[in-house]
C-alpha cells in the first residue's frame, strides 16, 4: 500500500508546478484569454518541449507511455493554474482517438506532428441534440465511390477554430442513437464545406459550432473500419472525463485553500472572519469534499490502468463526486469571499467558472450517477485484492 510518487512522477510534478508558479500567473493567463487565438503558441511549444504533449500517448506512437497517474498530475496543476492551452482537445481527445483508431500512415501524418506541437487538433464529440449521449450522432457520412460525403452539425467543438485537424464521428449506418454504425473521420479544418463559427466559452476557453455541408473527403480520412468507431470514442471520452476530473481537483483544492487563507486575513467586526464557527464548519465540509474527491481520483486512476467496466464505473463515480462535492466547494469559495468572490478581478471567479464548465463537460453528476447505477448491476465492485492479484 503506497501512495507516494516515483522519482519520475515527482520530477513531472516539480516541472509542471514550477511552470505554473513562475510562468503562468493569473495576469498572464487573463491576457492570453483576450488574445485572438485564445491561447499562447509559445506556451504550447513549451508543453511540447517538456514532453507534456507526448506524455499520455504510447511509446510506439512516439509518446512517452505515461499512464493515468501522469495525466492526473499534469491536469491537477493545469487546473490550479487555469491553463487555457488546448491540452484536452489536442492530446487527450484527438490524441486519444488517433492512437486508438488510426493506422500507421495516419499516425505518422497526424499524431506525430500533434505530439511535436506543430498540429492543432480536436475531436467533435457532441451535436446540438446529443446532450451527453456520445452515440447520438445525426451527422452522416455517405459513401460515394472512394469518397465520403459528410453532412451535419457539431456543437461545442473545443479548440474548434484553431484546429488544423478535425476528428468527426459520423454515422455511416444505423439509426441516430445506435452505437454501431459510427465512423470517425479525420478532416482538415479548411476543407471545402466546413463552416466554423468560433466563440469563447464562459471559462475563457475557445470552441466552435462546426457545420459540415457536403464535405467530400477521401477514404484515407476514415480511421479504422467503417461503423466500428464507438468503442474508441467511448474510451477516449472516459479518458477525457478522468482528465477533466483531475483538472477540477486542482481547481477545487485551489478554491478551498484560497478561501481558508482569505478567511484568516479578512477582518470584520474586528476579527478574522475565519474565527466564526458558521464559516469554520463550512470550510471543514469543503476540506472533506476535497479529500473524498481526491480519494476517488486515485481510485479511478488505478482502475483506469486496469480497464474494463470497472474503469468506466470508477470514472463515473469520480465525475459524480466531483460534480456534487465540487459544486459545494466552489459555491462556498465564492460565498466566503463575499463581494470579492463575484468580481472579474479575482481568480476565484475564474476558477469557479472553469469548474462550472467542467461540471457539464462529458456528462454532469446526474448523468454519471445513472451510468454508475447501470454498470453496478454488472459486477460486485469490492476493492478486491483478489482480482488485482
Amino acid at each position: 500500500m503506497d501512495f507516494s510518487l516515483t522519482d519520475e512522477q515527482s520530477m513531472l510534478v516539480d516541472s509542471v508546478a514550477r511552470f505554473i508558479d513562475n510562468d503562468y500567473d493569473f495576469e498572464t493567463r487573463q491576457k492570453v484569454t483576450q488574445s485572438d487565438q485564445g491561447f499562447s503558441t509559445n506556451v504550447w511549444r513549451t508543453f511540447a518541449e517538456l514532453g507534456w504533449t507526448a506524455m499520455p500517448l504510447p511509446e510506439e506512437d512516439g509518446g512517452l507511455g505515461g499512464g493515468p497517474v501522469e495525466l492526473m498530475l499534469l491536469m491537477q496543476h493545469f487546473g490550479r493554474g487555469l491553463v487555457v492551452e488546448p491540452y484536452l482537445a489536442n492530446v487527450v481527445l484527438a490524441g486519444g482517438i488517433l492512437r486508438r483508431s488510426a493506422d500507421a500512415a495516419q499516425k505518422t501524418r497526424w499524431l506525430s506532428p500533434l505530439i511535436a506541437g506543430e498540429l492543432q487538433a480536436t475531436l467533435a464529440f457532441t451535436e446540438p441534440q446529443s446532450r451527453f449521449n456520445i452515440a447520438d450522432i445525426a451527422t452522416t457520412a455517405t459513401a460515394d465511390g472512394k469518397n465520403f460525403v459528410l453532412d451535419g452539425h457539431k456543437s461545442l467543438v473545443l479548440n474548434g477554430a484553431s484546429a488544423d485537424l478535425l476528428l468527426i464521428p459520423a454515422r455511416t449506418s444505423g439509426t441516430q442513437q445506435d452505437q454501431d454504425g459510427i465512423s470517425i473521420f479525420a478532416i482538415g479544418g479548411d476543407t471545402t464545406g466546413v463552416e466554423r463559427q468560433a466563440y469563447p466559452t464562459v471559462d475563457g476557453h475557445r470552441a466552435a459550432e462546426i457545420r459540415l455541408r457536403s464535405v467530400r473527403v477521401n477514404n484515407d480520412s476514415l480511421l479504422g473500419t467503417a461503423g466500428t468507431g464507438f468503442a474508441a470514442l467511448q474510451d477516449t471520452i472516459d479518458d477525457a472525463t478522468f482528465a477533466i476530473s483531475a483538472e477540477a481537483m486542482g481547481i477545487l483544492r485551489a478554491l478551498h485553500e484560497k478561501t481558508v487563507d482569505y478567511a484568516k486575513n479578512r477582518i470584520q467586526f474586528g476579527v478574522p472572519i475565519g474565527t466564526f464557527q458558521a464559516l469554520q464548519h463550512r470550510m471543514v465540509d469543503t476540506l472533506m469534499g476535497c479529500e473524498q474527491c481526491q480519494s476517488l481520483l486515485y481510485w479511478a486512476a488505478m482502475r483506469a490502468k486496469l480497464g474494463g467496466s470497472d474503469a468506466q464505473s470508477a470514472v463515473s463515480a469520480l465525475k459524480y463526486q466531483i460534480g456534487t462535492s465540487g459544486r459545494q466547494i466552489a459555491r462556498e469559495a465564492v460565498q466566503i469571499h463575499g463581494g470579492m468572490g463575484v468580481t472579474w478581478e479575482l481568480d476565484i471567479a475564474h476558477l469557479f467558472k472553469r469548474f462550472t464548465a467542467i461540471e457539464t463537460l462529458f456528462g454532469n453528476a446526474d448523468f454519471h450517477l445513472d451510468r454508475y447505477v447501470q454498470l453496478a448491476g454488472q459486477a460486485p465492485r469490492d476493492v478486491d485484492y483478489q482480482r488485482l492479484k
Partner: protein
Amino acid sequence: MNLPADTAPLFCIGIAERVILHQLGVASCTTVPVLVSGCGWRFLCTATWIVILRRLRPERTAGHVNRLPEGRLMNVTLTDEEIAFRDEVRTFFQEDFPAELREKLAAGIDLSRDDMVRWQKILFRQGWAAVNWPVEYGGTGWSAVQKYIFANEIAEANAPDMIPFGVKMVAPIIYTFGNDAQKQRFLPDILESNVWWCQGYSEPGAGSDLASLKTRADRHGDQYVVNGTKTWTTLGHYADWIFCLVRTSSDVARRQEGISFLLIDMSTPGVSVKPIITIEGDREVNEVHFDDVRVPIENLVGEEGKGWTYGKVLLQHERTNIAGVARSKYRLRRLREKSSQSLRGATPLLDDRNFARKLATVEIELRALEYTELRTLAAVAVGKAPGPESSILKIKGTEIQQELDALFVEAAGYYALPYVPEQYAMDFVEDQRIGSGSETRTSLRYFNNRKASIYGGSNEIQKNIVAKHVLGL
C-alpha cells in the same frame, strides 16, 4: 537518482539538447528564466525526464496487472505474504467464530455478555485480541496493511470486534502513561478479557464541553474520595472497572488543568449503576453514581492533573477506529443483495431508480472514504502519527453508517414499523415472526445509531477540531 550506466550518456545528451534549445533563439521560452535563476538542476531534471522515462520504464507485460509499472501511487495491491495472511485470517474466522454466535447474529439476536467474552477469549488465544498494541504487551506487530486486511475479514465474517473500552481505550493510556505496576496489574486481564472495562468521561453537565466535568476526587491520605455522576456509560452494567476523568483540583488557570485519569473498581462501595433506556427501547448505556467512593492513589494513571492530555490521546484513538469502513462495506453489500432480490413477489427494490441512485451515492462516498482511510494508513506506515485529520474519518464514517441505516429502513418499507423486539430473543417461536428476517429491526438500528454522530466527540466538535488543527482557523 540512480541511473543505470547505459542511460547516463543519454541523460547528458538530453540535458545538452534542452540547454541548446533554450540558448538558441527560443528566447521567448518561458522556462529559460527558471534555468537562469538558480533552480537550474531541477529544470534540467524535469526537461530530461522524457529521456529518463524512456530509458527507465520497466517493460510492460500484457495482462500483468498486479503492479502499476508507472508508479507506486495507488498501489493497494497485496504481496504474496499479505495474500497468505488474508487467507489465514479468513480461514480462522470461518472455522473459529462459533456457529452458535454466528447464528444468533444472523437472526438479529443480541449477544450476551458471556457470548462476547467467549469470543474475545478465542481471539486472545489466537493472539489477535490487541491488534494495535505494542508487541511487548501482547500486540500483533502487524503492518498497516495487515490491520486493514484484518478489519475487512472480521467484517466480512460478521464477527464482532473487541469491545473497545478495555483493549482500545484504557489500555493505550495505561501502557503509554501508566507505571510498571499498573501495566502488570491491568494489561494481562484486558488482553484475556478477564476484566470488563467501561468509560467514565461524560457527565450530565459535561457533554461536548467535557472540561466542565464536576466529578471530584479529593485526596485523603493514600486514597481519593470520589463524588459525582458519569453518564452515557456504554455497557456499564457489564463492567468490572471504569476509567474516569475526575477533577482533583479546582484551583487552576485553565479548566483543562486539574483533571486526573483514575481507574475505579466498580465493586467499590458507593458505586451505583442506573440504566438509561435509549430511543430504540434497549438498555445500552447507564448513569454511574459515585458516593464517597474510596479509591487507592495507586489507581491514578500518570501525573495528577494531566488527565486531560491523556484523555485527548485516547479520543484520537477512538476517532481512528470510528469510521467503520469495513463494516459499512459489508452492510452495503448485504443491502445491495437484499434489494436486488424479489421479496413477496414484488419488483426488486433496486429496480426503483430513486433507491438505486441513493444506494449508489452511499457506495461512492464509502469507496472514497476507504481510500481516504488508506491514505491515512499509508501515512501512518511511513511514521506519521494519525492526527486531527482522523476527525474527518469519524465524520464521514458515521454519516455513511447512518445513511445505510436509513436505507435499510426504506428497504423494509411497512415492515420497519412493527415494534416487536421480543422476536429477537433466543426463545422466540419462529412461525410467529412478523416481517422477513430482521426487517423489523431496521428501524431500531436506525434509531439507536443516531448516537454515531454524537458519541466520541459530536461531529460538530470534530469540525471544530479540524478547523483549528488542520485548517489553522
